[in-house]
């Protein structure tokens, strides 16, 4: 798959909530190829703070305009420096990267389980699925955060007319409970769903267990440290079960390493061996 590595300008900066920003870039080559679940590696400056570029999921891509956007949360050095980039400044972007989601197939209802800034790839997947004819009413989108001020939305999500459930751990907005809690109660109502999840590792692990226990189909999008993002360093490797071992518990005897950046970031439920 062709990938592009170049300097592209930031053309729009939006603040969605304190510390959560949406950036739009003009990068026709990348926007033209981007699929839901894929990501880009971004480097703000030519110096070495931080050394590695930082990975961000593609939130949306506008092929005709040649734009794509990301939504990110300010954590440390890399995201702070990105946040300080001015409109029209150029940043170094490599992408599109990763396997992306398989488009939903068949008649199953879908549940999107988005924890925090795990939302972007699931929004993109939902938007494209609906546009490709997947009935919006068959998609439930759970968007969760720890607390009200970490919840964010730019209006597009609501515009898709899916069943949208927001939740916060502390109940300060939306339902009270974690994404996992909500997912569980949704599955209690209707156990025949395909689950797509993206968020913190702890959340993904729990969701994976639920999916496996219920023998559903599910896809998890992982976040790992990424030196290169395009498969050359092996630094992002995670332990996975060989296909024949799925479901086995004797995981550490026989594992296979996969690179999150090229073999993922989307993995089948049951594939990843969690710590």
């Amino acid at each position, binding site marked *: 798959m062709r990938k592009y*590595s170049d300097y592209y300008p930031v053309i729009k900066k939006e603040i969605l909530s304190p510390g959560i920003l949406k950036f739009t870039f003009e990068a026709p080559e990348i926007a033209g190829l981007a699929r839901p679940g894929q990501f880009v590696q971004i480097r703000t400056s030519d110096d*070495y703070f931080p050394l590695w570029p930082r990975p961000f999921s593609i939130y949306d891509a506008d092929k005709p305009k040649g734009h794509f956007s990301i939504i990110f949360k300010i954590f440390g050095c890399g995201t702070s420096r990105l946040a300080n980039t001015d409109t029209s400044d150029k940043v170094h972007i*490599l992408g599109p990267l990763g396997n992306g989601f398989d488009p939903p197939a068949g008649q199953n209802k879908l549940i999107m389980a988005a924890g925090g800034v795990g939302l972007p790839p699931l929004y993109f997947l939902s938007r494209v699925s609906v546009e490709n004819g997947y009935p919006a009413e068959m998609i439930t989108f759970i968007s969760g955060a720890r607390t009200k001020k970490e919840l964010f939305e730019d209006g597009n999500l609501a515009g898709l007319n899916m069943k949208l459930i927001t939740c916060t751990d502390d109940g300060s907005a939306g339902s009270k409970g974690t994404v996992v809690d909500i997912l569980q109660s949704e599955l209690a109502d209707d156990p025949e769903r395909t689950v797509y999840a993206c968020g913190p590792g702890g959340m993904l692990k729990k969701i994976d267990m639920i999916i496996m226990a219920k023998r559903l189909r599910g896809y998890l999008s992982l976040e790992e440290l990424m030196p290169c993002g395009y498969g050359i360093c092996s630094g992002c490797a995670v332990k996975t079960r060989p296909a024949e071992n799925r479901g086995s518990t004797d995981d550490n005897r026989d594992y296979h390493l996969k690179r999150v950046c090229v073999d993922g970031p989307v993995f089948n439920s049951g594939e990843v061996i969690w710590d």
Partner: protein
Amino acid sequence: MGLDIDLSVNIGGLKLKNPIMTASGCFSYGQEASEIFDLSLLGGVITKSLTYLPREGHPPPKVCETEAGMLNAIGLSNVGIVNFLAEKLPFLEKLDTACVVSIAGSTMDEYARLARKLAEHESVHALEVNISCPNVNEGGLEFGAEPGPAGKVIAAVKKEFPRTVIAKLSPNVTDIVEIAESVADSGADAVSLINTLVGTAIDINTRSFKISNVFGGLSGPAVRPVALAMVYKVVSNLDIPVIGIGGISTTSDALEFLLAGASAVQVGTACFIDPKAPLKIIDGLKKYMQNQKIYDINDIIGTVGNR
């Protein structure tokens, strides 16, 4: 429009169209980067170090960032020689660039067997013998840390492989010149240095090591001054061609090594932070030479201090 610029170099029989190669372990076997740019623009490509059998390598976490550098304990994860020949070499063969295969063994015999297999393939222009991987017991520092064993490995490989043999040296030694001398005496056509420095890092919140293997190899811009000093020491003391490695990220970095006397350089960690870093260096070298009115790269090599 000025004279043509000649970037070609010859390193112990290995001819390169330009002195910029990608370092072992920092370029996989080439396919991934070929989705980004035309690999034939490179002087040469060096594969991930191969062992006889495939290796998964160390469990994650395998890498972490440090100040202007990174630690890795990949643990020589590789596809093994058989898969390499079947799946990777055919791709590399088609490129118009030097193909150097890096090998690593846990016994003298493994090195020899790898060399023998690779000798059969003319498209393998050179071997780089990794006797310097700091984070595995196998195929690593036990050979590279002492002049005696280092020389023996090289002699064994040299016996099997008729083309250029490059010994890749470890910086984690008291006297790099002594090791370089030993491999030169044993028939190495060139040496490449440095592999990574042994390092570690601790997460003060979890109070655990940041990489599963505890010790990892430090690479990136942080190590460049150490690498440059070792290259200059070897160049000043021995006649063998030297390939410089260590933190090379920009044209200026590459020039430091060439001026110090390296006949070529390898770009490692910089390929992670900018896949096109090697190409930018090649372009930058041309510009520098145009500005300095030097038309043959060989007129730059080793000229530090004597202008």
